[in-house]
């Protein structure tokens, strides 16, 4: 068993969804139940593999890559199939393994128009491969390939199953991300050539940058290319404009996946690739990233306050929350990066959950216009309370998961890494703290207007079904985790802290 996990565990986890997708392609479209069953089974098996991997993960060595597989792939360009997990990737992989099956369960009877579960679930499984692959890849080219694999399925998911403006939103999403990745690949190549490396292995490249004393200006330029790639994916202000459109137009499942996992690919890229490989570039960029993060926090919050559509509001809140994550990263301290990773997981659970609820509200009322909603607590009390609970978590209430992403990130800005402008970062800290007040304002306001009071006239006499069984199954694990992580943040911090130390050391702290 141990041997199997060591040699094949990660590979199985990455490619099993693809195998499921191929099997589903061979089954006729009409067999809907069978398709749902195969998709769920595949993701559950992947989840079980993930659990075994976690159980066999050596937590005392969480700073090292484990279950490493290193095989030849593209010899001509010295790129290898290198996969492995350490404490930074682990929580994000587990998040992916959890969220995807939940989405399939949620979809069970809720396939958005034009239905077609076969195609929808195949895309979902391909997405799954791309996401898990990105988190385990330890070779820049391999990472790039997985990073891009998620694009097309998401494009189709938004474009085919999305809302009214779906075509615009899908192409915008695609072009933005593609633009970023084009710069990113040039940056990867530049890194490869300036170090004179014979490999795209992330660890080796980071070492070579140090050993060869790559000039500061070169590092700044290469970091700039990566910044375009990852920053657009996060998304950071001013590249965020694809996000509200994509989130609003995507089907519920798409929004959840986008919020829970896809955005994390960008922040993960910063932590895994950009920071440890280009420490001096990171130093130069950190104040800019911090500044953009703060603008994102405030801009996102103000954007939320101006929204009339529930889903769009949640989308803008994503911009704000990812701002905290980026602020944590920008401090370049182990404290800040730990907070950022916690923030990624917390945001994934909480915002994913908010999108789930928004999707269910839309299904029942056929609108997400806040002004037309109201009295959710009366018509569907369970859903109403879940919305309240998740909003509280999202605004960072202590005791729930959101707090541990937000608060330490703000705190870390008080004491940024040596060499950064302390005054500037304390100013950022002040701005970010201001953002939490605004977050409380827009979330409570959202909750109040949709859940309190009496239902509006047009829906007053309609029978509204409270949460269905599939919704309960999909939501409970997320709600439970929000609480558990709120009380036991050490579950995540314990995984990440040693591995983050390594990043911080690479940064010279």
């Amino acid at each position, binding site marked *: 068993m141990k041997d199997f996990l060591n040699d094949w565990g990660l590979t199985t986890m990455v490619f099993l969804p693809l195998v499921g997708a191929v099997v589903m392609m061979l089954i006729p*479209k009409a067999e809907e139940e069978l398709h749902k069953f195969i998709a769920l089974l595949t993701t559950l098996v992947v989840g079980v593999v993930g659990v075994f991997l976690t159980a066999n993960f050596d937590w005392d060595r969480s700073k090292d890559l484990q279950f490493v597989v290193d095989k*030849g*792939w*593209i*010899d*001509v*360009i010295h790129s290898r199939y290198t996969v492995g997990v350490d404490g930074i990737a682990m929580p994000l992989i587990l998040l992916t393994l959890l969220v995807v099956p939940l989405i399939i369960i949620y979809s069970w009877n809720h396939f958005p128009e*034009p239905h077609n579960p076969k*195609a929808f679930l195949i895309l979902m499984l391909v997405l799954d491969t791309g996401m898990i692959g990105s988190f385990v890849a330890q070779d820049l*080219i391999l990472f*790039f*390939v*997985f990073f*891009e*694999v998620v*694009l*097309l399925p998401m*494009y*189709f998911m938004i*474009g*085919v199953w999305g809302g009214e403006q*779906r*075509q615009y939103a*899908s*192409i915008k999403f*695609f*072009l933005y991300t*593609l*633009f970023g990745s*084009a*710069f990113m*690949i*040039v940056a990867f*190549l*530049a890194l*490869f*050539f300036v170090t004179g490396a014979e490999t795209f292995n992330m660890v080796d490249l980071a070492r070579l940058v140090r050993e060869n004393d790559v000039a500061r200006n070169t590092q700044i330029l290469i970091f700039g290319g990566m910044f375009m790639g990852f920053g657009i994916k996060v998304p950071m202000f001013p590249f965020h404009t694809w996000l509200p459109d994509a989130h609003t137009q995507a089907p519920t499942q798409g929004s959840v996946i986008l919020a829970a996992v896809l955005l994390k690919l960008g922040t993960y890229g910063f932590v895994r690739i950009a920071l440890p490989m280009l420490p001096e570039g990171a130093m130069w960029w950190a104040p800019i990233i911090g500044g953009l993060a703060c603008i994102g926090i405030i801009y996102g919050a103000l954007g939320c306050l101006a929204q009339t559509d529930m889903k769009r509001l949640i989308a803008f809140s994503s911009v704000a929350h990812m701002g905290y994550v980026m602020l944590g990263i920008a401090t370049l301290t182990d404290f800040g990066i730990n907070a950022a990773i916690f923030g990624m997981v917390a945001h994934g659970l909480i915002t994913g959950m908010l999108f789930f609820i928004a999707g269910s509200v839309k299904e029942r009322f056929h609108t997400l216009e806040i002004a037309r909603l109201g009295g959710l607590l009366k018509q569907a009390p369970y859903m109403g309370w879940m919305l309240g609970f998740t909003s509280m978590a999202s605004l960072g209430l202590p005791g729930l998961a959101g707090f541990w992403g937000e608060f330490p990130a703000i705190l870390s800005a008080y004491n940024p890494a040596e060499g950064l402008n302390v005054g500037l970062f304390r100013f950022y800290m002040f701005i970010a703290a201001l953002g939490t007040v605004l977050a409380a304002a827009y979330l409570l306001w959202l909750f109040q207007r949709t859940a309190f009071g009496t239902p509006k006239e047009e829906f007053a006499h309609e029978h509204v079904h409270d949460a269905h069984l599939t919704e309960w199954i999909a939501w409970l694990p997320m709600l439970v985790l929000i609480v558990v992580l709120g009380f036991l943040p050490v579950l995540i911090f314990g995984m990440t802290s040693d591995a983050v130390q390594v990043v911080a050391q690479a940064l010279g702290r």
Partner: protein
Amino acid sequence: MLASLVAQAAQLPFDKPIIDFHALAPEIVLVSLMSLVLLVDVFKLEEGRRFIPPLTGIAMLASIIPLISLALDGADRSMFGGAYVVDNLALVLKAMFLLSGYVVTLLASNYLAEGDFWESEFYLMMLSSILGMVVMSSSRDLITIFVALELLSIPAYLMASWEKRNLRSNEAGLKYYLMGVFASALMLYGMSLLFGVSGSTLLTDIGAAISGGDSSTPIVTLGIVLVIVGFGFKVSAVPFHSWAPDTYEGAPTPVTAFLAVASKAAGFVALIQLVFIGFLGRADVVEPMMWVLAAASMTVGNLIALRQTNVVRLLAYSGVAQAGFMLAPFAVVGTNAEDALTAVVTYVLIYASMNLAAFAVVIAVSRKTQSGEVSSFGGLFGYAPGLAVAMTIALAALAGIPPLGGWFAKFVVFRALVAADSAAGYTLALVVAVNSVIAFYYYGMVLKAMWFSDAPDGDTSPIRVPVSLVSALTLTVAATILFGMFPGLIGHFTGNLQGLLAAAGG
């Protein structure tokens, strides 16, 4: 008079050239089977017609067998004083041409049989054109290159106007012919200048002669520029691209596929040989020119493609842009010849598979819709999901999205440009980067029609796809996916091309 000349000639010393029949076996097999096709057509007429497409296909595949034995043998073979060389590069390219020819045969067979076309002659034309390409792959001499070029072009002019009573098809053929002849004339003039300077038609001799001497710079420059311009027409690089969209749209679609893939690749093969063997020493002339051609082709091709509503025209302009991507590595030949060579060859191979896949779908869909408009692809995902997925794979590959073939092609181009570590290389890499994003917009228009729109007239009856098209699709799509997931496959062929550069002494 004649008798005395012959008598004189007989006095001249004559060394019988050494002919390596193993090295020539692919050409010999191809010519024999081509003759068989001709004979079957002449003697059997109507009843023989149905045998001709399979026979053509067999001719292509059978010619690959000696290629394999040559590859296993592994030795580079050179004949006729170095004018005709069979090395790794030549073998890989020959295999690509023969396979492309096979796929085009599959694409054409139903199209021709069901339309108002002369059938048997078409295959003969195609075989001779392919023969020209196969010869081109081995040509290392100006005259051989020119003969190969005409051998592959003249049948192609005829094929472009194969739809006899269709004005557009006639226009296509005529435009292609006039432009092609014009380009040939320019090229010949350039070649004559190079011959004048070097006193030899062998590319290696030319390379040695022109790399040093500064005195002859203007003539050499003019010669190089004219030759490259001539092939610029062939590969439809901007500003010599104007024939391509009209020709592509007017010609029967299988012919368009043939022109867009095989004929264009042949132009690149000639460029590879000329530049990497002959002109490598004059990178100062080649590099700036290629930089401009590449940047202009990508940008102009992409921008015009954005406005197209016809899929074939769209693919034509996308082909112009792709030619720009393929020309880009030439802009750094001076500093980084090895990577540049690998990049161009890799791109040409992958481009062949993904572009043929796209054309296969276009042919399949137009069987039902009788139209090449983008809107006619509406709702394809609803009623023909297989074709829609195949087209998606082809277009996404052309756009360069991993894990489909095109990404690796773009990647090696980036790699060659960045590795040159020069301002020209980096700026061109950025132009490539921006253009790959623009390109997705128009590929996305087709994807959008297929996946997001409804069928234009509500007609959702399924498309009957004949077996030959299915096999063509399977082959090309499988190749596109495999090249993307395991680029090592391509690397296996393109990783060992230094022999060419060694010949140039570079």
